[in-house]
Each structure stands twice: as C-alpha cells, then as structure tokens.
C-alpha cells in the first residue's frame, strides 16, 4: 500500500471566525452540564479534523487507493428486469489479453446470498435475474477498459419473462422469489376504529423513486493475505455488518476479513447494503492480487438501493374544531427485487403515517412488496419522508375543509411529551412539536421582491418565464421520525479511549460519511478529559467492536455515547489513582486544561505526567434503552426517541410552463442540544436540499422495470441555482434526558418535511391538487 486512507488526526485545525449561522435557540436550558463549550469541546464551533486534507485534495477516498500490481474489477449486469439464465459462456472473456479472472455464481465459495435483514439477494445471479442491473459476473483485468470489454464479451443466454412491476399486484401474483412477494404487511389498529368525525377528507398520494446520489461512487480495494483471508478498504456505513455478510459468502471466519473505512464520499442510506464488497474480495482471493473497483455514475444507479416509491391512500376524520378523531391509511411501498431493509422502512412509514399529531384512533395498513423493479432500502428519512407527504397533504386538505388556518390546525393537534403515538407508545422524552411549528411559522415573512434577474425566475437563464407570468405561494409542513434502531433490536456502539502522555486516542468504528462524527468525537473527548489533542484511530474491524450503522440519525447519540462513556471510564481510573496518591476523594478532582485539579484549588498535577508511559485505557459498549416488537395490532414501545422539524417554503411558479423557483425556505427543528453549530447548519441545509430535490426534480424513471435515466444528465439534483438560502428560524433546544449531552440526531428531520412543504407551496401558488412528488412540469401545466 502506498496510499492509505487519511487517518483523521488532530492537527492544529483552525477553528475559524465566529460562525454566522442563522440559528438561534429556543426552549429550556439543559440539565447536562457542558464543561468547556467556550473552547474546543462539546457545543463549540470546531472545524472538521479532515477539512484541510479535503480542501487540498489530499484526503484519500475509497476510489483513490492503489497497491502494487493491482487489478481492476468490473461487473456484468442484467439488461432484463426478469429473465431465466439458460447458459453463460465466459470463454471469449477469459481469452481477452490482460484478463485474470471471470467469476460466476458457481465461484462463490460460501453462502450464495446476502442481505442486511434477510439474505435473499444472490452475490451473483444464479439461473435467474430479478431486476435490471443485477450482477451476473465479475471480471478482473489489468486495465479498467480491458475489464469492461471482457465483461461485454461474456455471452449470457437469457430467456426474458414478463416482469412484475406493480407492487399492489405483487401479493397475489406468482412468486418471483422463493421467499414470496411480500416483505412485510403491518396493521396498526389503535383506539375506537368505528369512530367518525364531523369533517372527513380523503386523498391518494404518490412518491417517486429517489436516488441518494452521493458524489463518491461505490469503490474499494481488496488485498488477499497469505493465509486465505482478505483486507478490504471500503466506503460503507457499517463496517461490522459488511464483514459479517462478506465472511459468510466467502465461507471464511469473520476474523479473516479485515475492513478499514476508506474515505466515504457521502452515503444517505445507499451504503448500508453491500454493493461491490463481496465481488472485490472474491476477485482478490481468486487472483491472489489486490483488486480495485470503481463504479461509474450510471453503474452506481444500479449498484445501490433507492428510496421506496410509495402509493398512499388516506382518510382523516376531525371534529368541528379541527381536532383529529381518526386517521385511516393504506401505504404500499415498492421494495423492488430483494429485501434490503424494506421490512423496517414499512414499519417506519406505518408508525409515523399519521404525523406528529394526537390521533385517538387509527387504522393503518402498510405493505412492502417484492417486484422486478430495482431494490429499495435506506435513504435519509427512511419511510417517514413518503408518509409525511401524505399526512401533510391531508392536513392542508382538512384545514381547507374546516376553513381553518393550516398552521393553527397543526398546532391544536401537535403531539407533546406524555402523549401517545398511534402505536400506543407514550412519548417519554422531549418532543416539542408545537414549539417547532410556532418558531417556523412565526418567523418573519421573507421580503422577496419580484425580481427581473432571470436567475431568480422559474426556468432561470433559459429566458423562458417573464416575471409577470409567475404566481407565488407559501406552503408549510411538519414531520417526524424515530432516532436509532427500533422494534427490539439491541442497538449499540463500541469505543475505546486511551490517555497517554496527556494525549487522548479514541478508537471507534463509526463510519464517517461526511456528517462530522470525527469532529464530535474529538469535542467529546476534549470535554470529558480536559485535553486538547485528541487522535482518532482508523475505523476498522480488527481493533474495535461494532459501532452500528451511520444511519437512523443515530451516531451522535450512540457512538457519541460510546466515546463519552469510554472517556469517562478512563477519567475515573485517572482520578481514582490520583485521589489515592493525594489522600483525597476522587469526587473532589477534575480534569481541566491538561491538568488534574482539586476543586478546593489546593493541588494540581500535569495530566501528561500522571499518564506518562502506557497510560490509561478503557473499552466500552454503549446500548440505548431496550425497545419492543410491535404486536399483531401494531402496538408496542417500539422506538427509543423522536425528533421533528418544520419547513415553510415560498415558491414562484409559471403555471403555463409548469416551472418552479423556490424563493425562500425557513425551518425550525427539534435538536435536543446543538453540539457543533456549523455542522448542525450543514445538516439542516443539506437535508433540506434533498427534500427539495424529491419534491421537484428527482425520480428514477422506470419503464416496465427498465431504468431510463441512470446518469446525472437525466437524473437531476438541486444545484446552486435551485436552492435558495435556508433560514433557520430556531433550533428548538429541549435536551433529551437519555441522550448524551441531551443531543438528538439531526440528519434526517430536514429531509422529511421539506418535500411536503415545497409541494404545499406549489399548490398554494397554483390551486392544483398535485397528489404526486416529484411534481413534474406537466403536472402543473396540464394539471
């Protein structure tokens, strides 16, 4: 290895000038004392430790790695959504000069299938392909173009069959997989199901298939070792669960598979499932050489799961004052060909289907079905995004039916701590929904003059729209979801801390995917240990236990909690030794500014001296409070904690051309406690942008199972011209009692309510029903 992933160490990272974030805080002060927020600890505006190498181009992403004499891997994929494979001739490919290996399903030495929750997906297609892009063969060659041409030379004799593409038809259709066509059906029955309201509104809604579209394509480097094992440098969200699946399919012990996190170019859920991990290891073990693989952008669209497309029917009942009486819903998610996390996504979609509102009675039916469409799984918001569009569309419809202000309707129904969800669970943590609504809706209305600058108009510089032809609308939405894993899963993270010579070293396998955990880990260690220099050891499987997934808004709480606990364990050892030495109680000692100090001011010693030599070390596992499975009526304490956000969007629309320009986005969010203001702003702005994309432009277009737009030319994501400034009206800081420092995860809520608020703004501008996102120009112009 001549290039190694940059280990995030602690250089004298510049902290920069005071941040100009628009955020202000509301809500109660925290119970958890923050020790040194004024410096570089928790709460401070500290810069990323990897910021400097990233701006210099020196940070090593998983596609930047190489090794002496390495080979390039390439994947042959199915062109059919459904077909039997009658035969495969690899002869021409193997005969290509420069080719070292061509591998098929028969070459998989261990388990033939993999999967996060159910191992139902073939490593390589075995006699049958079930979606366009399913891997059929992998090739290793001495040049990427040779590998690609060799893959094209493989002759596969397919017998195409009619694909099953309608998830609503899936449960009664002939099974397209031995496990059947239903991933999960959920029935939530809560309260008096015969109740009816004075006012009833009904609607059917649809959400298209969104892609995570991270910038750094799937890539990695596998190196065979001398005793049949393999080392893999990889971009992923969860090293240890990757290892588990890789080892099973390679048929070797987990200890023989050593993963190290390589630089990750974004994730957003798309790296929770395996993509090329097993393929790389197979090729490396087969050839005895290092193998590197980098997906192209079009291949990336086939290489990972997407956000589930949804069809939703809703009926809301309310009394004459607008108080919700009952919510009925049926939600169908298209899970595509393989299970991935569909069973968890449909649980979330169903549990949160009624929104963050008090609902005395609910009947919610959720179905995640198998089809021959591309597999769907995790994406930021994880089921709550789809149903937020449904319940918020319904709340606006209900407000109109009641002739009531839509914000007022939401306020009188807002859930609070102590209230019950439709799953029967009582919310025991903080959940300031009403305050979030008030802060967002009550922010000063933006003063946006009609502009003649074409860049501000729908259609932009294309000179398509005249200012006089635009109409303006304002929309509002609020959404929520759970934090961490649910339904009885024993979710945990591991961390180790060592303090030697006054320097802290933290080891944690948490996948840094861009969210800034590396910054928080250093801040936490500084706060707990009173040190400044904190080294982060590489995230890898060989040195530490699982950190769990960088998903579900869970790492600040879970791995943050693990790092905090490890640091506190080390602190307690140090203080116990010093206390014994000084003949005082450890309760009278603290670590501060690189010193051990007695609170009475009588004694102090240099931490570097106390910890000279081998120093002190601790290794911990941090678990969140246990949760329960849902029962047959979808009832149970299935979730740990909840977070909400609200968005207000102002949009200008050209109704004749169907073009939209968003002029302002204002948001407020339930954050528990802000640990790093600039990083919090970044999560909120970035998450909001992904919601804007889903509302207006992002959709994987399918035609009988075929993907029509697998490129950044045809799958468009928001640019600088599409995203207005995001005004953060308030961070609503009500510290979560069980969370380290009171901080809730903040990554997902911005993506949940932003799509619904954009759709509401376009409806307000046009008066159209617009039951589907993304809203396409024709939906407006011909609507």
């Amino acid at each position, binding site marked *: 290895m001549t290039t190694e992933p940059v280990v995030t160490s602690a250089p004298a990272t510049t902290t920069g000038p005071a941040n100009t974030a628009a955020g202000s805080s509301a809500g109660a002060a925290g119970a958890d004392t923050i020790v040194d927020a004024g410096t570089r600890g928790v709460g401070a505006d500290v810069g990323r430790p990897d910021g*400097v190498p*990233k701006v210099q181009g020196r940070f090593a992403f998983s596609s930047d790695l190489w090794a002496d004499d390495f080979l390039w891997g390439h994947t042959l994929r199915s062109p059919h959504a459904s077909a039997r494979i009658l035969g495969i001739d690899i002869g021409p490919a193997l005969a290509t000069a420069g080719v070292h290996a061509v591998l098929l399903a028969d070459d998989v030495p261990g388990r033939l299938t993999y999967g996060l929750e159910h191992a139902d997906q073939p490593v390589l297609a075995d006699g049958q392909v079930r979606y366009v892009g399913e891997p059929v063969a992998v090739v290793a060659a001495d040049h990427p173009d040779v590998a690609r041409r060799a893959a094209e030379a493989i002759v596969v004799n397919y017998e195409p069959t009619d694909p099953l593409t309608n998830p609503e038809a899936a449960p009664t259709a002939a099974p397209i997989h031995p496990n059947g066509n239903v991933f999960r059906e959920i029935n939530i029955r809560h309260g008096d199901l015969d109740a009816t309201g004075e006012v009833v509104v009904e609607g059917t809604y649809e959400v298209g298939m969104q892609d995570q579209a991270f*910038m750094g394509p799937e890539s990695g480097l596998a190196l065979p070792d001398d005793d049949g094992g393999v080392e893999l440098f990889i971009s992923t969200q969860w090293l240890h669960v990757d290892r588990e699946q890789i080892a099973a399919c390679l048929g070797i012990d987990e200890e023989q598979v050593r993963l190290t996190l390589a630089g990750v170019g974004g994730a957003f859920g798309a790296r929770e499932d395996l993509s090329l991990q097993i393929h790389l290891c197979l090729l490396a073990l087969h050839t005895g050489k290092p193998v590197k693989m980098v997906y*192209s952008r*079009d291949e990336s669209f086939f290489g990972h799961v997407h956000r589930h497309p949804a069809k939703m029917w809703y009926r809301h009942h309310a009394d004459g004052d607008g108080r919700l009486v009952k919510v009925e819903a049926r939600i169908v998610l298209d899970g595509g060909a393989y299970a991935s996390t569909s069973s968890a996504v449909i649980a979330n979609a169903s549990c949160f289907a009624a929104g963050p509102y008090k609902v005395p009675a609910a009947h919610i039916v959720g179905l995640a079905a198998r089809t021959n469409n591309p597999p769907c799984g995790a994406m930021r918001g994880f089921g709550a995004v789809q149903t937020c569009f449904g319940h918020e569309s319904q709340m606006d419809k209900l407000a109109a039916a009641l002739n009531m202000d839509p914000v007022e309707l939401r306020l009188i129904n807002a859930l609070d701590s102590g209230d019950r969800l439709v799953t029967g669970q009582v919310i025991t943590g903080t959940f300031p929904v009403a305050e979030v609504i008030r802060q967002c809706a009550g922010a000063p209305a933006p003063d946006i003059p009609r502009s003649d600058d074409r*860049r501000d108009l729908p259609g932009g510089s294309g000179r398509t729209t005249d200012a006089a032809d635009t109409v303006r609308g304002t929309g509002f939405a609020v959404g929520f979801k759970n934090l961490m894993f649910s339904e009885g899963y024993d979710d945990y993270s591991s961390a180790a801390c060592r303090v030697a010579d006054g320097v802290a070293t933290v080891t944690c396998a948490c996948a840094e995917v861009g969210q800034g955990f590396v910054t928080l880990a250093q801040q936490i260690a500084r706060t707990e240990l009173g040190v400044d220099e904190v080294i982060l050891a590489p995230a890898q499987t060989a040195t530490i236990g699982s950190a769990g997934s960088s998903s579900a808004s869970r790492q600040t709480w879970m791995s943050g909690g693990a790092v905090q606990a490890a640091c506190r364990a080390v602190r307690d050892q140090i203080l116990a030794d010093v206390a014994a030495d000084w003949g005082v109680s450890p309760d009278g000692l603290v670590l501060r500014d690189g010193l051990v100090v007695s609170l009475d001011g009588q004694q102090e010693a240099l931490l570097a001296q106390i910890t000279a030599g081998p120093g002190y070390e601790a290794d911990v596992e941090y678990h969140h409070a246990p949760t329960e499975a849902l029962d047959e009526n979808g009832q149970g304490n299935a979730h740990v904690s909840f977070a909400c956000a609200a968005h207000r969007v102002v949009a200008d629309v050209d109704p004749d051309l169907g073009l939209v320009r968003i002029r302002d986005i204002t948001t407020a969010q339930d954050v528990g406690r802000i640990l790093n203001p600039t990083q919090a702003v*970044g999560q909120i702005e970035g998450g909001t942008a992904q919601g804007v994309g889903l509302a207006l432009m992002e959709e994987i277009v399918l035609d009988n199972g075929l993907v029509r737009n697998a*490129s950044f030319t045809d799958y468009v994501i*928001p*640019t600088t011209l599409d995203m207005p400034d995001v005004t953060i009206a308030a961070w609503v800081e009500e510290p979560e009692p069980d969370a380290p420092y009171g901080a809730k995860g903040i990554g997902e809520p911005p993506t949940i309510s932003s799509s619904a608020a954009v759709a509401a703004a376009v409806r307000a501008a046009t008066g159209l029903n617009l039951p589907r996102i993304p809203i396409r120009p024709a939906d407006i112009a011909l609507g």
Partner: protein
Amino acid sequence: MPDPYSLRVNGVDCEVADSDLAESLLFVLRERLGLTGTKNACTEGECSSCAVLIDGVLTCSCLVLAATAAGQEITTVEGLGDGRDELSVVQEAFVHEGAVQCGFCTPGLIVAVHDLLEANPEPSDGDVREALSGNLCRCTGYGRILAAVHSAAATKRSQP
C-alpha cells in the same frame, strides 16, 4: 502502447508512459500520475468534481483526452495552495465556513471558485450561484459553500 508523452501539471513536467490514447485526462491524472485530488463523481461532464484549469480555462478533465492536453499548463487542486501546509484564501474559507462535509465535490469547487474570483473579484450572490451551478454537491445544500465564496472574495479584496 503509444509513445510516452509529457504533461505539464502544476508547473512540473510529468512523463506519461504505458497509457492508452483513449485515457481521459482525469484518468491519467489520477491513475498514472497519482494526483487523486481531482475527483471522479460522474465522469460524464455533469458534476465538475473533476474540474481543472487547462491554460487557465476551467475544464472537466473527464471530457478531455489526456494526450490532447500535452503542451498546455494544467492546474489541479494540488497546485492551488502554497505548499503542503499553506492553504489558499479559497481553501481557508472552505475550512472556516464549514463548506466541507464528505468533501468529494470539494476539489472541483475549489478550482472553480479560484477561477470565478480570478475573473470576478466582487461577484454578486447571483454571479456565484451561476458560476457554480455546474458543481454538484449532495451534502451541503450549498449554503456554507456560498458563504465560503463570499468570505474568500472579501478576504482577497482586503489583501494588498
């Protein structure tokens, strides 16, 4: 294999050997010369993560055949700071303003912002948005990036 040729990158003449003439400048920079700062997010000219300057012109290196860039001055992100430890004003601003998350789009943006501020030292918000509208970023929603550009422009203007 064709004859070796030479590329001038960041002021240094680099010999390119054993390279297929079909290789893009992006590929040669990354895989032949080890300059992996230039990124490969789409390799189809849509995202600008591979942006470099060729004779001062902002270019997607994925769309240029490497051999055609022989004899021209190529500047990559690695050539924009003042040595390993010194950051350019633009790089400094990106770090300070929190414009970096995963960082995959960052090198292309750094190159594009250098180009923008060279041509337009006092860009309006609309100018910045238009100039960077070809640089895709999926993490940030662009807010901190725009803040970094305005901050860098102000710093540059205040320098003698």
